[in-house]
């Protein structure tokens, strides 16, 4: 059936937002007049060409940046980094090298003001949920890339934020691992629903995970197209055989092409060719 | 043929060039082999008090003795060590330091007295300086450090007054600026050189008086030292150096102007305050002369009593007899 926005988590309202940065060559607009309504509990994937401002968008929702115009609201009020409404996992694991894996996850609880005796238990539970219970006492340098990414995810989830942001979380991993991780991510989300916004380059990943795929234009980024994904859940890791999935993927790809992103054109393209 | 002619010309010209590379202060035509090059080590830096050496160089006393003297400046322990090791032929050192060095198996010998009067004294404001060393009890005394002839003289004085180091308070001035301590009132008295500190204090408007050791606990003054090996191998060289130096000193004593002129050429610092420098030279002449100018002779008896004092004070252990430390026959061949 259709996508299943379970009403838990908070809604995110992005209203005519612009993000302008000063550079040596003059001010640069990463985003301009971007509006997007993310319903509570939905799984939204943002996709777009390089430099379209996807990461900037996530930072605005996380409260790490202020918009230069427009407004962002999480559950009705502007986001503030670390107040517990929004958790974010980055493209790199960003684990503190001198803490154990467990203490890295517990760091989120420490900064959230959770009492010391509670922290170890909750951190262990978060690690169990991502399958890392056995490496709790290792150092980050002893982990594989995939394990480190999972630890970063556990850290983002340990405080049970109603909104979870994921910035290309698995793009550094090989395709097979990524498929497995996507499936596990879906399982976690179905198990404890919340609003998720995930940024990716991968059309396959977008279709596999999303309720809606939001395609952004090249810089300055704004919403070019929203493709609703009505595949039933739970979805398998590998959707290559599924015709509906193929259709949706084609729609997304077409939308990406249509925004005339420079990198997506054939190298020897003559002017006006399709 | 051209290259050969050039080479031949070079071969003929070179010896002439070398011949004109004369020793300074010697009359030019002689080739350098006529003068024996020797090194003389004087104290910390050039000073008007070294006038006899400057005069001996400039007025040709050394050249007449067949010597080409190069003066270098070193601090005290290096002078003894370098002279002992033969890296320099001659040096100037304090008599009490020679006693200690010789006891520490540094083979130097004192061959000629430069200062017949011991230069160090206790200095203080007029009325504050006791006539008798026993009056030093309870006073605060500034001195450069717990070593050197100033320290030896102070302890000898205290002993003569029945006192020890514990009966006075010592303040050390490693920068040799104990006059500042006296001027500030940080100390009651200071040790200093009779031809130096009193003049500096008077220049600051402080009238001073002195307590000297000569009558109370006499010690020999500074003199010329040589390495033991050199003295044994070439006593004539040592004698000619000592005689030349003594002759120059006599000339300065007779007519200080010539000494001052020689010093002015060698000591840049004099230009900053020539009046004080001249006063220092005049005071120094008094110390060279002492009671009676003795042309470098070594007072053997005084050395004996001073040696005993140094032994009592614990500076030396008596393992090397005083006779081995001095060579009175150099300045006084009879």
């Amino acid at each position, binding site marked *: 059936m259709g996508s299943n926005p379970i009403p838990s988590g908070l809604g995110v309202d992005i209203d005519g937002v612009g993000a302008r940065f000063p550079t040596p060559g003059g001010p640069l607009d990463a985003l301009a007049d971007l509006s997007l309504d993310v319903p509570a509990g939905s799984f939204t994937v943002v996709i777009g060409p390089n430099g379209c401002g996807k990461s900037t968008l996530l930072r605005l929702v996380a409260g790490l940046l202020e918009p230069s115009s427009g407004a962002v609201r999480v559950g009705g009020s502007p986001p503030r*980094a*670390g107040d*517990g409404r929004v958790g974010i996992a980055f493209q790199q694991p960003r684990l*503190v090298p001198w803490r154990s894996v467990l203490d890295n996850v517990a*760091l989120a609880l420490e*900064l*959230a003001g959770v009492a010391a005796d509670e922290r170890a238990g909750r951190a262990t539970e978060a690690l169990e949920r991502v399958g890392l219970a056995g490496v709790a006492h290792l150092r980050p*340098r002893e982990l594989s890339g995939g394990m480190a990414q999972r630890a970063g995810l556990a850290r983002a989830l340990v405080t049970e934020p109603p909104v979870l942001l994921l910035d290309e979380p698995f793009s550094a991993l090989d395709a097979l691992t990524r498929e497995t991780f996507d499936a596990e991510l879906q399982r976690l989300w179905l198990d404890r629903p919340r609003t998720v916004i995930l940024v990716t380059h991968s059309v396959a990943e977008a279709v596999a995970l999303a309720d809606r795929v939001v395609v952004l234009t090249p810089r300055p980024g704004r919403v070019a197209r929203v493709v609703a994904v009505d595949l039933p859940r739970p979805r398998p890791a590998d959707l290559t055989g599924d015709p509906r999935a193929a259709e949706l993927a084609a729609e997304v790809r077409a939308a990406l092409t249509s925004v005339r992103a420079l990198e997506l054109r054939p190298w020897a393209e003559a002017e006006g060719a399709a | 043929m051209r290259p050969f002619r050039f080479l031949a010309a070079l071969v003929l010209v070179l010896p002439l060039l070398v011949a004109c590379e004369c020793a300074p202060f010697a009359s030019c035509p002689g080739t350098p082999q006529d003068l024996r090059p020797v090194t003389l080590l004087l104290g910390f830096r050039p000073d008007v008090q070294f006038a006899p050496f400057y005069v001996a160089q400039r007025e040709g006393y050394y050249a007449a003795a067949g010597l080409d003297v190069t003066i270098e400046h070193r601090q005290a322990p290096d002078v003894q060590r370098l002279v002992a090791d033969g890296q320099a032929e001659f040096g100037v050192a304090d008599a009490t330091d020679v006693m200690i060095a010789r006891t520490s198996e540094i083979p130097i010998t004192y061959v000629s007295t430069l200062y017949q009067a011991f230069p160090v004294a206790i200095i203080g404001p007029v009325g504050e300086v006791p006539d008798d060393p026993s009056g030093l009890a309870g006073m605060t005394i500034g001195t450069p450090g717990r070593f050197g002839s100033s320290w030896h003289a102070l302890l000898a004085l205290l002993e003569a007054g029945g006192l020890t180091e514990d009966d006075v308070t010592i303040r050390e*001035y490693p920068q040799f600026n104990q006059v500042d301590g006296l001027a500030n009132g940080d100390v009651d008295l200071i040790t200093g050189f009779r031809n130096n500190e009193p003049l500096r204090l008077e220049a600051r408007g402080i009238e001073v008086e002195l307590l000297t050791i000569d009558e109370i606990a006499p010690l020999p003054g500074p003199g010329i030292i040589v390495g033991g090996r050199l003295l044994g191998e070439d006593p004539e060289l040592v004698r000619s150096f000592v005689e030349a130096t003594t002759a120059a000193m006599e000339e300065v004593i007779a007519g200080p102007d010539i000494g001052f002129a020689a010093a002015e050429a060698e000591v840049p610092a004099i230009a900053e305050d020539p009046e004080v420098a001249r006063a220092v030279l005049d005071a120094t002449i008094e110390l060279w002369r002492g009671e009676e100018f003795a042309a470098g002779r070594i007072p053997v008896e005084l050395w004996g009593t001073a040696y005993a004092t140094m032994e009592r004070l614990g500076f030396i252990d008596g393992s090397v007899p005083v006779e081995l430390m001095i060579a009175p026959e150099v300045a006084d061949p009879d």
Partner: protein
Amino acid sequence: MRRIGAALVSLGAFLLAWKLVTVLGGLPPYILPAPEGVLERGVRAVNSGVLWEHTAVTLLEIVLGFAVGASAAVLTGIALGKSVLIERVLSPYIVAAQAVPILALAPLLDIWFGGGLLARVAICALIAFFPIAIATMVGIRAADPLLDEMLRSLGAGPAQRTRLLDIPSALPVIFGGLRVGVTLAVIGAVVAEWAGASTGLGILINIANFGLFDTPLMFVALAVLAIIGLAFYGLVVLAERRLVSH
């Protein structure tokens, strides 16, 4: 075990080379004493109590001077690292103070600080200060901005980020500075003593050199200083192994 063996072998080689230099160079003991001469003089100095009397004083100066200097330096380094304004204002003075030979300033400092143990500790602290402060500043600045953003996303304020990220990540570099600083503290104590003390290994050097013309005793004092320097350096390395795990 291997490490100790290698150290003993290199020490033996060094002593042998030293002995060879004195023999081949024909150097008398008052210019360069042979190792056994220094050892014998050292044993006498230990037995007479002279050596400990001076060593104890210098040890105290080093410990206090390093403690004061290192603490001030780390705090200053953090401030310099975190604030460009502070760095612009302070660093000209810090660099100029470092370039001036403290040996020249030390007598003045001795007077300003009243000439006792406090003065010695102050001069020693000043000499140890610079490398530690600069190392701290560089280490703090090198903190990973990606980790900084991650901490911000968890709600960490500037003070928390300094405590949780900047300082721990700077520790390896700070310890590099501490290694240099602790050996400078040994020199610093001697320089401080030369400015106006009456006891301490620096003074023993003076007494041996200028007063007693006892070169072997001077070398004993130098050897003790070298051993102290090695020992303190080793302590810093040990502390680094304990505190720095990355």
